[in-house]
């Protein structure tokens, strides 16, 4: 039996979800970037990394929840297309890596307050992973799905 996804019966649903998706990633990636740039010694230097992380982790999580749930709904509008889209698969791989990295290695670094070369590498990798997620997301619309 074929069930009609209610999202596809409204022309507005997809673009509205996309706007939420954009705002969600601005909140999550933006707050992560503030902490990462601090690790790299750029911006918010009056604060310790741990203090900054204590201020921002909840905003990051809130942004991630918005972005993931709006993303799931966007995905549900045309799952086959996304599943066959190489940019989407790239994005999901990077997203999984970014989230695991963020809540393991990255979290350890930002709660230990040691500003050393290791912290800078972690910040760079974190920024690179999140940038790759956005990169993959944009290319979904530009890659031929091969359908």
């Amino acid at each position, binding site marked *: 039996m074929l069930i009609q996804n209610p999202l596809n019966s409204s022309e507005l649903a997809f*673009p509205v979800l*996309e*706007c939420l998706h*954009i*705002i969600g*990633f*601005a*909140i*999550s*990636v*933006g*707050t*992560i*970037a*503030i902490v990462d*740039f601090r690790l790299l010694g*750029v*911006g*918010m*230097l*009056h*604060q310790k990394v741990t*203090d900054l992380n*204590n*201020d*921002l982790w909840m*905003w990051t999580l809130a942004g991630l929840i918005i972005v993931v749930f709006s993303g799931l709904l966007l995905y549900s509008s045309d799952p086959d297309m996304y599943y066959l889209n190489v940019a989407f698969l790239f994005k999901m791989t990077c997203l999984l890596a970014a989230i695991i990295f963020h809540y393991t290695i990255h979290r350890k670094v930002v709660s230990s307050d040691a500003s050393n070369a290791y912290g800078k590498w972690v910040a760079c990798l974190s920024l690179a992973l*999140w*940038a790759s997620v*956005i*990169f993959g*997301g*944009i*290319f979904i*619309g*530009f890659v031929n799905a091969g359908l």
Partner: protein
Amino acid sequence: MILSLCQWAQNTAFFTAIRGSWNVYPVIMTTHLLGIALFGGMILMTDMRLLGWAMRNRSISDVVDQLRVPKRVGLLIVATCGILMLGSKAEEYYYNIFFRIKLVLLLCVFLHGMIFRSSVYANAAALDREAKIPGRAKLAAILSLVLWAGIACAGRAIGYVEPPLERIHAGISETRSLP
């Protein structure tokens, strides 16, 4: 006049090359979005601090003053990529209603800056001395959040308008890499 300027811009060799390349345009778009993430996150935290909803253990001046330069760098990235995308399809953007809305909202952001800079954003140290966060600071923060969210949404909506093809004169160069 504006229309002929748009037509001239998109027909320069530089913008024709951007339009004709299948990968340069999305890379510019990605950088635009990366800039939005960096810049948007900082705007959000600045405004949330002014509202007293976030980073309450930090003084307003700490947040506002320390994020000023990174925010400007972010804006520069976003604006540069925006102009590159605009130039490559200037005529199409000219006709796009959401692009026009976005421009009006950007004008409002500029006016917002003019109005609130001296009393709020460049005056953060004085805000710290007040017992409560003044109403003008909260108003500035709410307006800023609404305007920037509107700009993001209008920007996304640009892609949903079908261009009036019969009125578009943007040719694709013959060196286009994909059919």
